C-alpha cells in the first residue's frame, strides 16, 4: 500500500521546531502520475489524525478522496462545487491565530468529514518565506 502521508526527513528540521518533520519549502507532490496542476497549498495533517488520513481513499473511494485533495490544495477558501461545506461555530470555528481562516467542515461523503483551516502566508519562523498552507485538524468517519 502506498502511504498517503509522508514525512520528509531528507533535510534538517527547522531550528525553531526541533525534530519536526514539517518543512515549509517542499511542496507535496501529486502522486499517481497525473499531470495536473501543482498544489497551491501545502497540505498538513494533525499527527493524531494521520492514521485516519491514510485510510481516506479506502474509506470513501479514490475519486472522492482526490476531489477533497484537489479542493484543499488548490482553492480551500471557496465552497466546493460538489461537496457540502460549512464553518464550524463557536470556539471550534475560530482561527488558530493571525492569518488563519475559520474552521471549515468539509463533508467528503456521508460518513467522512474533515475540518481544516488555511493560511495564505504561513511561516514557521520569523525570517522564513511565507507560503500557503492547509492544516487538517480533524477527521471523523462516523455517520450522522
Amino acid at each position, binding site marked *: 500500500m502506498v502511504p498517503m502521508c509522508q514525512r520528509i526527513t531528507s533535510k534538517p528540521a527547522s531550528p525553531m521546531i526541533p525534530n519536526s518533520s514539517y518543512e515549509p519549502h517542499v511542496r507535496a507532490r501529486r502522486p499517481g502520475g497525473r499531470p495536473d496542476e501543482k498544489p497551491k497549498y501545502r497540505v498538513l495533517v*494533525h499527527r493524531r489524525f494521520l492514521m485516519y488520513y491514510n485510510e481516506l481513499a479506502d474509506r470513501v473511494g479514490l475519486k472522492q478522496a482526490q476531489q477533497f485533495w484537489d479542493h484543499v490544495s488548490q482553492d480551500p477558501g471557496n465552497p466546493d462545487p460538489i461537496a457540502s461545506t460549512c464553518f464550524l461555530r463557536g470556539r471550534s470555528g475560530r482561527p488558530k491565530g493571525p492569518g488563519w481562516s475559520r*474552521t471549515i*467542515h468539509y463533508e467528503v461523503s456521508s460518513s467522512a468529514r474533515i475540518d481544516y483551516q488555511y493560511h495564505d502566508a504561513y511561516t514557521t519562523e520569523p525570517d522564513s518565506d511565507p507560503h500557503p498552507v492547509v492544516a487538517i485538524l480533524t477527521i471523523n468517519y462516523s455517520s450522522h
Partner: protein
Amino acid sequence: MSDVIFLPTDLASKRLEFLDAARNGQARLRDKDGTSLVMLPESRLRLLETLAKWWQAYMRLESFLRRTELPRASELGELAWLRSFERDDLEEFMSELHDALVAATADEDTVALDDCIRAWRITARQLEDPLRRSVLVGPHVPEDYVEASEPHDSE
C-alpha cells in the same frame, strides 16, 4: 389578513375563488357554528410551525442561561445536542439563533435558520469526541502537523 370570509356553501359555488385565496396566502371560512377556519399553503404552515418552535427554544435557552449553572441534558430536551458546548459557545449560539430567527421571520423563509442550526449541530457532533475537541479548541502547535500527500489507490 384576508377581508373575504367564505361560507361553507361557497365551497361549492365559489370553489375556485376559495382555492385562489388559499394559494395566495390564506382563505378564511366561517363555519356554521361560527368557528373561523383558514386554509393556507402547506409551506407557509411549515414556516410558521418552524418559527414558533425555534422562538420557543430561544426563549427557553435564554432563561437557562440566566442561571449560574449550565442546563442539564434532561432540561434541554430536544436541544440536548447543545450539551457539548461551554457557556461562551451557548451565548454565541443564542446570538446567532436570534439573528437567524429575525431574518427568517422577515424573509418568510427558513434558509438562514436551517443553515444556522445545521452548522451548530455539526459543530456539536465534532465536539463529542475528546480527541477532536482537544484539537479543535486547542492552540495551533506547528510540531503537531506533518506533511500530507494526495490520496493514492492502495493497490
